[in-house]
Structure formats: C-alpha cells, structure tokens
C-alpha cells in the first residue's frame, strides 16, 4: 500500500497530477466513505425497487380495478417527473411536514437524508421495474397459462411457478439497463447532502484544487461499479438460460 502512495506522491511532485486520494489518508477516508455510501444506496435501492416492481406488476395484472388503478397512478407519477424533483419533494416537501423526534437530547427529523434518498430512488426505479416486469409477464404465451389452468393451477400458483420464472428471463436485459441507470442516479443524493461518492469527491477537489484528477477518479469509480453490476447481471442471465429454449 505504501508503495502505491509513494508512487502517486512521486507522480504529483514530478508531473503536478494530484491524485490526493491515493496518498493522503484524510482524502482517502473521505473518498472511501463516499464509496461505501454509494454501495449502500445502490444495493438497498436495487433490492427495494425489485420487490416493489414485482409486487406492482402482479397487482397490475389483477382483475380488480381497485388494485390496478393505484399501480398505474404510481407508475405515471414517478415516470413522468424528474428524479431530482422527486428527491426534493420527499426531502424538503414531505420531510419537513413529518414530526421531529428526540434523539440524544437533540430534535432530529424522523427520517434522515439517507433514508429519504433510499425511499425516493427506490420508488423512482420501481416505477420502471413495474413496466419491465409487465413486459416479461405479457411475453408468456396465453397458451402456456391455459395449460397450467387445465392442470388445476390457480392464478396465484400459476404466477409463482410458471409466469414469473419465464417473465424474469424475458425481461432481464431491460432490467439490467434500469438497474445500471439506478446505480448512476444515486449521485442525485448529492443534492440533499448525502455523503456519497460524488459528494465526497467534490469536497476533496474543492480543498485540494485537483478537479481534473478527481473527475478521472470519479468517472473510473462509476465505470467500475457499473461494470461489476453488469457482470453480475450477465452471470444471472447465463444461470437462468434454459437449454433449447428459443424465443
């Protein structure tokens, strides 16, 4: 580790390229903290948006208008408005209307900016996931469902054992895209002062005056994070492949 730090220190002294995060412990801690926050935001919002999306798609296919209508309204609202505005709405709009709570002798908001970011971004991505899952569900042939019906499957059992496993396979590429977008959209949390990677890196370059170098680090960080996510999704896609199943 020390060798790497020395090399970057050397680089700075000889060329003026100041990658302070790689030799300055204080900058590194800030950067690493931001990275951890980005991972926390990404993982929780991906999981929550998948769950909300799957449940929403199930309700959307229900025969009851009372169930379909709220889901459709949810999709329209969250798809037709900018995610940054949604974030502001939740944090500055709803957040200030909620009662404050007493914690360690101080009055603090009921939900922190990190929690609002997770809620807001999950709902934003979930609206798209609902539509993505629906595309998969609609790609399952009616006749396959009929075969299940003729074997005595109820609607719910057919969904769990037949429709969803097939639908997920169909919609994985589209889901992949949306989750990549979601990971990158977590940078919006910057706007409500969530100390994620962009926020941390911005602080570093303001103090160390190395905007260009930190930009490179920032872009590389997201390039690698998305690369890992895409690799995982492709592995999942391969694991789900059915021998001889041509679409």
């Amino acid at each position: 580790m020390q060798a790497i730090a020395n090399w970057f220190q050397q680089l700075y002294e000889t060329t003026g390229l100041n990658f302070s995060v790689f030799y300055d412990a204080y900058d590194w801690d800030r950067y690493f903290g931001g990275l951890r926050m980005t991972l926390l935001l990404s993982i929780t919002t991906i999981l929550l948006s998948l769950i909300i999306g799957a449940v929403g798609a199930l309700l959307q296919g229900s025969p009851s208008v009372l169930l379909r209508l709220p889901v459709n309204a949810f999709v329209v609202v969250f798809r037709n408005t900018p995610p940054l505005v949604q974030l502001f709405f939740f944090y500055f709009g709803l957040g200030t209307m909620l009662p404050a709570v007493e914690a360690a002798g101080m009055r603090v908001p009921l939900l922190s900016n990190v929690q609002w970011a997770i809620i807001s971004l999950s709902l934003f991505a979930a609206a798209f996931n609902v539509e993505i899952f629906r595309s998969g569900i609609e790609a399952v042939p009616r006749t396959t469902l009929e075969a299940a019906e003729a074997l005595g499957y109820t609607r719910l059992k057919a969904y769990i054992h037949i429709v969803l496993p097939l639908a997920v396979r169909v919609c994985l590429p589209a889901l992949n895209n949306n989750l990549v977008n979601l990971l990158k959209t977590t940078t919006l949390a910057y706007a409500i002062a969530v100390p994620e990677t962009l926020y941390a890196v911005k602080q570093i370059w303001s103090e160390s005056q190395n905007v260009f170098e930190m930009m490179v680090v920032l872009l590389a960080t997201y390039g690698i994070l998305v690369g890992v996510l895409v690799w995982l999704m492709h592995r999942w896609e391969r694991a789900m492949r059915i021998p001889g199943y041509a679409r």
Partner: protein
Amino acid sequence: MAATWTPDQPIVQCVDVRKSFGALEVLKGISLSVRKGEVICIIGPSGSGKSTLIRCINALQPISSGSIQIEGIEVSDPRLDKLALRRKVGMVFQQYNLFPHKTALQNVMMAPIHVLGQKRPEVEARARALLAKVRLAGKEDTYPGELSGGQQQRVAIARSLAMRPDIMLFDEVTAALDPETVKEVLVTIRELAEDGMTCLLVTHEMNFAREVADHVYFTDRGVIVEHGPPETLFTAATDERTQRFLSQVL
C-alpha cells in the same frame, strides 16, 4: 348433481350447447355424450367449432347456453369448483404448451405437487413410470426445447395423466407435428384407449378415427351433422356435407 352420478351414466353429457363470440355463434346446439371407456372422435372442417367445444367442456371458455356435465358436475354452474373439474379432466393441446423452464420429468411432476399437494418421492416414481409408458425413458432431464414435437406432445400426455384424470381431451394434438412423428403420438393415444381411458379427440387423423374410435361425430358450422360408429360414418354417410368432407380428406 355430483352425488347422483353413477359410472353407468355418460361421463360427459352435452345438451344443446351454444356458444357465441359477440354476434358470431360458433356452437349452435351441440348434444353429445361420452360413456366411460369410450373413444370419441370429433371431425369436421376448420372453423366448425370442434376446438371451441372441447375447450368449453374443460371450462376454459364459458358456454352461452345449454348444459355440459362431467360426471354430473355442471360446467356452466357459476359456483363451479374448477379444481374438482380439472382433477377429472386431462387436456392435451395442439401446441403441447409444456413449461419450457422445466425438464420433462419436472413438467410431469409439477401439477401433482403444486395443485394436489402430493409427496414428491411418490409423484416422482409415478412420473418416471409415465414417461416410460409414453416411451420417453432416458429423456427425464431433457428440457422441452431440446425435444422433437412428437416427444414434447408425449410429455404433455404424461403430464396430464399424472393428475389421474377420468377422461382425456385431445385438441388436434397431431396437427402441429411432422408426418413421421404423428404416428408415435397416435400409438400412445391408442395404448391409452386400450387401457380403458375415456378419450375425446378433435382430430384430422381419419385413419386413426376409423381404427380406434367407438363413435365419430361430424361437425360443420357449429352443428353435429351426422354421427355414428366409424364403420358406418366413413363408408355410408347419408348427409351430403359429410360425404363431401370425407371425399376431400380420405
């Protein structure tokens, strides 16, 4: 109703069944009955309502009026217990409709486990025996996409049989198959019939109908034009429409 049905009564009893899609009346008063152990073939030109009839018998489509009873259960009853009906009735489709993400063995095992809640080891033993019966031993772990049409259709037959139905419905099950694989499916159905399974087939396989059926119904434009034992219907049809149809397909 169900309590009054005895095995000496028809297992399927259709009385004046009518079915309309909007303004189009597809079934215009069909009456037929199937007794236990019988093999019944329904033949007729495309669009005559054969497939609609067989789908109505399994409550996949509601009828507009009339009555269909399976072992005394009224299919058009709005309070129909569909599971009870479908435990009695097995159905095989033209396009096989196997579950593509499951192996042949899993396809056969799924419904008894998920729907009837039967024990896995017992279901698996039965599924293996059924696959062997339809001559697919060795293909247990193969996915539907890797099987030929004829093989898939035999898996579909085994899948229906796993539910131990009292009657099997076959909806043009060889229509999508290559000529050389048609035979292997027909042999399977013939063996089923010889075992005493009650079978109702919509088919274009006239030779099969002639050799295996106990009774043949000729339908055209939503009505039964003529019916009788195959030896009579195929050689001494009295209606002009039947004669014309048979002269075209034989």
